[in-house]
C-alpha cells in the first residue's frame, strides 16, 4: 500500500539525476530486500501513474530482489533464508539470527540522448 510513496521518492531521484545529466531517462534498475513490503506490480502501476506527464514517462523499471540472509547458530555460516523452510542450507539447523534486510535502492539509470533538457526547454 505504500508503493505510491516509494514511487514518488523514486520519481524525484530519477528526475533530479536526469536534470543533472541533461539527458532523457529510459530505464532504471532498483533492488529490494524481502522485508520491504513492496509488490512489483503495484510499484510499476504507481510509478507509471505519476510519471506519465513527466520527463520520466518512458522509464522502464527493473526490480531486482535480494535474498534475506541469516547467520546459522550452529555452523556460524551465512545462508539465504526461505520463508517456507527456514533452515540453514549448510547444516540444516533451524536456529539462526536474521541479518539486516537489503534496503530499497535505486541502483542505476539508463539515459537515451544528450542535451535532452536544452532541446525541450521551450
Amino acid at each position, binding site marked *: *500500500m*505504500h508503493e505510491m*510513496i*516509494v514511487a514518488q*521518492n*523514486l520519481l524525484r*531521484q530519477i528526475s533530479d*539525476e536526469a536534470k543533472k*545529466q541533461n*539527458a532523457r531517462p*529510459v530505464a532504471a534498475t*532498483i533492488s529490494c530486500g*524481502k*522485508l*520491504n*513490503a*513492496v509488490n512489483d506490480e503495484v510499484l510499476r502501476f504507481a510509478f507509471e501513474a505519476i510519471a506519465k506527464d513527466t520527463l520520466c514517462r518512458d522509464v522502464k523499471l527493473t526490480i531486482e530482489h535480494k535474498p534475506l540472509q541469516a547467520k546459522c*547458530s550452529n555452523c556460524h555460516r551465512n545462508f539465504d*533464508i526461505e*520463508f517456507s523452510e*527456514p533452515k540453514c542450507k549448510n547444516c540444516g539447523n*533451524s*536456529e*539462526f*539470527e*536474521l541479518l539486516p534486510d537489503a*534496503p*530499497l*535502492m*535505486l*541502483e*542505476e*539509470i*539508463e*539515459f*537515451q540522448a544528450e542535451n535532452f533538457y536544452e532541446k525541450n526547454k521551450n
Partner: protein
Amino acid sequence: MKKIKIEKKILSENEKYSIENSFFLMQKKKLCLNMISSPGSGKTTILTRTITELRDKLNIGVIEGDIQTDFDARRIRAADAPVVQINTEGACHLSAVQVSKALKDLPVDDLDLIIIENVGNLVCPSAFELGEAGKLAVLSVAEGDDKPAKYPAIFAKSKVLLINKIDLLGHVDFDLERAKADARRLNRTIEIFLISAKTGQGMNNWYDWLIEQVRQTGTWQERLH
C-alpha cells in the same frame, strides 16, 4: 545510451529523519517503541490499561497515528497521558518526519517511555523506520493464528509480540502454539506475552518486561532518586 550508477536508498529521506529521531531519543535516554498491528487488535486499549496500571512507576507518552480522527488520542488523554495525534490523511503508515515533529510537541524530558501507535496495518508500517528502539507487534486471537506465517516481515522485525484478547480463546479457532512457533521461526529472540487488555489477564508479565526495558535505557532510576 549511457548508464549511470546511482546506488542510493530510495527511502533515504525517511532514513535521514529516522536517524535524527533515534539520535535525539538516545541522547535523552528515552525508550521508544513502535507499535504495529492490524486495525482493531486492541492497541489503544493495551495502551490505556498500561498507562493507568503503571501510573506510579512509568511516565508514558504516546504518539498516535491514524488515517483520520482523533478518537484514539482522546482515549489516551482520558487516561491522563501526554499524547500527540498525527493524521496521515490516507497514508497507510507513519513516516519519520511526522514523528520528528510529534516528538517536539511531547514533554519528552518528563517521560520514561514513548510509544508510537502506528496506523492499523500489518504490512506497510514495518517498512518505515521511525527512530524507535524496537518494534512492538500486536496480534489479537480473533485475527487468526496464520498471521505470523502470512505477514512475516513485522514478526521478523519485532522485539516483542503481544497476543491480545486471550479471553476470547474459547470462542475462536486460534492455535496459540502455531502462532508462537511461526513468529519464532524467523525471530528466535522475540518476546511473546499472552494478554487480555480487557480483563487484565497476563498484563503483569508484559509490565515487568516493559519496566526492565525502560530501566536498561535510561533516566528512569535517576528520576526516581
